[in-house]
């Protein structure tokens, strides 16, 4: 169950995002790395396989995923692909037992940004985790903002969105009326309604809102 957008906005997301999710079939390493991360102050969820993680109730939307490259069943790369397809904002760091990093990196072109051997120094591992957490946070923030805007703009009618697109371009009610072929008074009514629905009084703030919505792909660009 994904939380509904409403719950998501209320603020639990920020804490959830700080978690490091570790997936590794080698239980001994899984335990050790989780222990070290917890001791270093991270919130950790550990899973012995990709399947177990996917079935878990935990959020798959934000945070950092530390995953073994080679696992029986779903491999690390396959898990990453699946999450990407599901629109997850998790940032992935791969771990591997074998030393031949060069070829593995080439193999996962376009995959994760971080890739470490299991015997990598602590500083390097924590660095990678921190970077991933940061990336996960921004990704999750974007996702949240997008949902919020979608919800906000979802209550507008098609005509109101049309009127909005003219308002943010600085058109007067009369001009908008002519362009859309409707009465000036009707335009005024639409305008009042959308200002009320969006709870944004000034035209400048409306423009900011519109541009933000566009940059997140919620609204088309201004014609």
């Amino acid at each position: 169950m994904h939380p509904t957008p409403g719950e998501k906005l209320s603020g639990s997301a920020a804490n959830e995002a700080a978690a490091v999710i570790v997936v590794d079939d080698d239980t001994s390493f899984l335990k050790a790395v989780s222990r070290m991360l917890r001791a270093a102050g991270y919130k950790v969820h550990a899973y012995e396989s990709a399947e177990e993680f996917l079935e878990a109730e935990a959020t798959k939307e934000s945070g950092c995923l530390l995953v073994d490259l080679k696992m029986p069943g779903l491999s690390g790369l396959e898990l990453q692909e699946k999450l990407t397809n599901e629109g997850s904002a998790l940032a992935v760091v791969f771990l591997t037992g074998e030393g031949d990093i060069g070829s593995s990196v080439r193999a996962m072109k376009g995959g994760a940004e971080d890739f470490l051997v299991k015997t990598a120094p602590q500083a390097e591992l924590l660095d990678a985790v921190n970077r991933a957490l940061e990336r996960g946070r921004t990704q999750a923030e974007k996702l949240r903002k997008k949902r919020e805007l979608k919800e906000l703009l979802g209550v507008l009618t098609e005509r109101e969105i049309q009127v909005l697109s003219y308002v943010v371009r600085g058109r007067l009610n009369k001009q908008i009326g002519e362009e859309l072929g409707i009465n000036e008074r009707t335009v005024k009514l639409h305008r009042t309604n959308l200002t009320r629905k969006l709870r944004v009084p000034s035209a400048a703030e409306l423009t900011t809102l519109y541009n933000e919505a566009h940059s997140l792909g919620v609204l088309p660009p201004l014609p």
Partner: protein
Amino acid sequence: MLLKFRHSCLCIVVACLCSASGTAAPQRSPGSDARRVLIVFSEGKDLPGNILLEQALKAKLQLQTTNTDEFYTEHMDSSHFSDEAHYRIFKDYLSAKYKGAEPNLVIVAMARDYALTEKLPPEVFGAIPTIFMTSSELEVPNSLRRRDVYGVVQRVDVEGTLSLIRQLQPDRRKIVVLGGQSASDVMTLERIKGAANYFPNVQFEYWTNRPIEEIPAQMAGLGSDAVLLISSIFEDVNGRPVYMSRAAQFLAPESKVPIYTFSIGAMGSGIVGGAMINPARMADEVARMALLARDVKPRRPPVLISTNSVAIVDWRALERGKIDTRRVPSSAEVRFRPVSIWEEHRVLISAIALVIVAQALTIAALVAQRAQRRRAETELLQQRTEMAHVTRVSTMGQLASALAHEINQPLGAILRNTEAAEIFLKSDAPDLAELRAILLDIRKDDQRAGEVIDRMRGLLKRRNLELSAVDLNELVAETVDLTRPDAKARQIRMEFTRATGLAPIRADRVHLQQVLINLILNGMDAMKDCANGERFLSVAVRATEADAIEVSVTDAGSGIPEDKLGRVFEPFFTTKPAGMGMGLAISRTIVEAHGGKIRARNNPTKGATLTCILPLARN
């Protein structure tokens, strides 16, 4: 003497055959599917393009013929005799000539408009299948879109020719178009004007209102940045037919301006070239329509309209015009290029080269064979003395990387645990219970790393191959018995076929058994997804002719993907999700150390067969 006698015999036989066939078919009456095809050219016999077309047409149609098919060609010469009286005479001539031997297909070729196709065949022969072929720009009239009239309309390739000009001579800024005044000519010019829009840097000039005789003088006034493109001229300013090929023949020999045109009949006159109608292609289409008309008889016969062309250039004209021959597009056909010695005597040169190469190969093969024999002798010696060492080293190399992977897991865990412990120790009141747990885990992982090494060392034991006389039947039987409990648990039927009268081989029992176990377990793994009752593993020993014994393990699983067949013996190659990819690599090393070979192939029905071929003991 003898030869002569034979020869005369042959003659008699041939004569008999001829007379026999003569009596069998006294009168040639066309069968129901025999064709009598009349090709009517609207122009005279001497138009170069039409000559090429007639040749191509006959060649293509003849390809489809049976012996009873017949072809006739008539030329109406309408460029010289274009009045109604001439048409009537021609019509009556055809009626009289073909009376009693009427064709069953008429091809009207290269008429400038569609009037001839509309009138002539029905007026002379009544309802008769007709194919028209033309390069006219005029729209095909609806009256011809009817039963039994087929068409091939091949229009000139304006875009192709303009592109060729730009490609060959990008420095020319002006294209002078020489055109005619008939309706079709005007439409071709319109197409050129349309295409001209795509060449904004080129100035187009159209010459349509002057007789051909005046053109050379006018061309003399053109600058060095111009080329001449001869468009179609069915009618010039005085209403006379000129044609592209004739215009080219008249203008090109004396011209300083490079000339291009659309008609293949103009090639050789001195023009540079053009994207030209390909007569063979056009004839192909007509021949196809002829088959349709005979065999299929579609309700609405097709009319094919296209501008397909082939770029053709004249090598001599390129050189004369100082046009860089490297600019000629690779798809273009180049004509009149002087042939090299290679091109002229290709067969002879190839034959000589072949003989030399064959000789060289024979010598090389003999030398190689000798070297190989020597090497084999040396290798055998080495194998006997250093077999154990070779095996160990190569297995070691293969295992090194797997070892690194296996051992990094516990080492990584130990490292992370140590780091965790360090963090705990920094706190004021370290959690001792947690630290104890950590130390315990470190100890366990250390042990695990040790086990990995032990496992590897088991394979790498410093021990020479201990060769002794081995009865392979007995060894395989023993191994099969060893794996039977496993097979039973996995519901696999196992069958063992022994060979009779086997001589013993010299082998290391323990190593060889390891190989056999490996192959049998692999076979079992391959049948994991088989339905119950279909899991069947067969192990067989048999003597081969070449002083060797084969042991084969055949499973009924899914087989090995064909593209991976060559790689199964490579280290770290595996098709199993949890496999390490070492089993077959080690097996190969062991079998080769015995002087044998190991092979993998897929069975014709299902599953795969792995075969070890081991040499019989010498002496």
